[in-house]
């Protein structure tokens, strides 16, 4: 996205192509009977128009998820009561999340945690070491590792807007 913002058409094309299956899956999971391909196109247009609002130091997925959500709300507003949608905010591999986009976001988010905490989460959650192995590798006790991981994951959730909002949904 950073390259796309500076006018690199090749990178931008790659990004749009990578986002497309995720968007399609996102809408299919939430919208039963609507024209998902139309929504994907409208979202890509919005992404293009609003791309300057992406913060290059922030994770990408919460940004595109918010854009997609707003387009979904627009669609439902226009379609009225004849559309059935799932109010499911979770996103992940089920939505066809591209591994490279996800990996970049995880790196950005972990970079915002204290180095120790980021290392412990990386070892335990990404490198899949057990609590005891993580404790041995970092010199912490197993219970301290559990607490650090739990608190770190809560911080990460808050960073992407889960459970820490004053204004929860869209205004209108």
């Amino acid at each position, binding site marked *: 996205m950073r390259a796309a913002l500076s006018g690199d*058409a090749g990178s931008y094309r790659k990004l749009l192509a990578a986002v497309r299956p995720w968007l399609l899956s996102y809408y299919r999971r939430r919208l039963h009977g609507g024209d998902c*391909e139309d929504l994907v*196109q409208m979202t*890509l*247009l919005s992404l293009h128009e609003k791309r300057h*609002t992406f*913060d290059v130091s922030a994770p990408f997925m919460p940004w595109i998820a918010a*854009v997609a959500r*707003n387009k979904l709300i627009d669609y439902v507003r226009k379609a009225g009561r004849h559309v059935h949608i799932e109010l499911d905010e979770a996103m992940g591999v089920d939505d066809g999340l591209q591994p490279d986009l996800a990996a970049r976001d995880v790196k950005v988010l972990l970079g915002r945690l204290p180095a120790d905490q980021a290392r412990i989460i990386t070892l335990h959650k990404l490198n899949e070491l057990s609590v005891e192995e993580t404790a041995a590798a970092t010199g912490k006790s197993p219970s301290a590792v559990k607490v650090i991981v739990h608190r770190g994951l809560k911080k990460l959730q808050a960073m992407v807007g889960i459970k820490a*909002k004053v204004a929860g949904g869209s205004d209108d």
Partner: protein
Amino acid sequence: MTDTLIDALTQNLKPVKPLRAWPLWLGAGVGLILAMIYVVYFYRMRPEFTGAPMTFMSVGKPLLFLVTGTSALWAVSGLARPEGWLEWRHVLPVAAMLVVVVGAFGLDIGRSGVADLRADLDGGVGLCYLTILCGGAAGLIAMWRLWLRRTATSHPVTLGAMAGLAVGSLMAAAYSLHCDMDAPVYLLLVYGLAVAILTAAAAIIGSRLLRW
């Protein structure tokens, strides 16, 4: 069809300027200085700033509105992107200021009674409303032209309201360099209502102009 769209979007792609918060803060700072110059030049400063003994409210009142305006601006910058939301730390200073003023109002009523409130409201009400509403509206238009229209919020009403609260509070801070009416009832019913009117108007405008 989507492939054609992607082709069209990537053809002749031009660099774009990312949305940054500093022009908002710079614009607000310049706007505040201009408002202060206007107030001092046309209305003159209150006596404490021209040699009379200083009182707590001569500094406390501008500071109260400055804190409110700054924290509302902080909320505006947090709400400007699609994934942004209103955080407690953004609204806490505004809530704290409101509690202070309402608390002082309650104490004032307890001490002097309701009968004295009318006397506390006597002086400069029209000018205060006019200055805060007109200056705030001008600030809001400038903020829209220079920054707000580039935002893409998921909360247009809240963003509009916070923008109105910010410009209204900053204008009130500038006007309080002149105004020596410091009674809590005056702060609530004159300053507070003027800022509230701007906040409500900006929320309504925001719901239309800041929509996707």
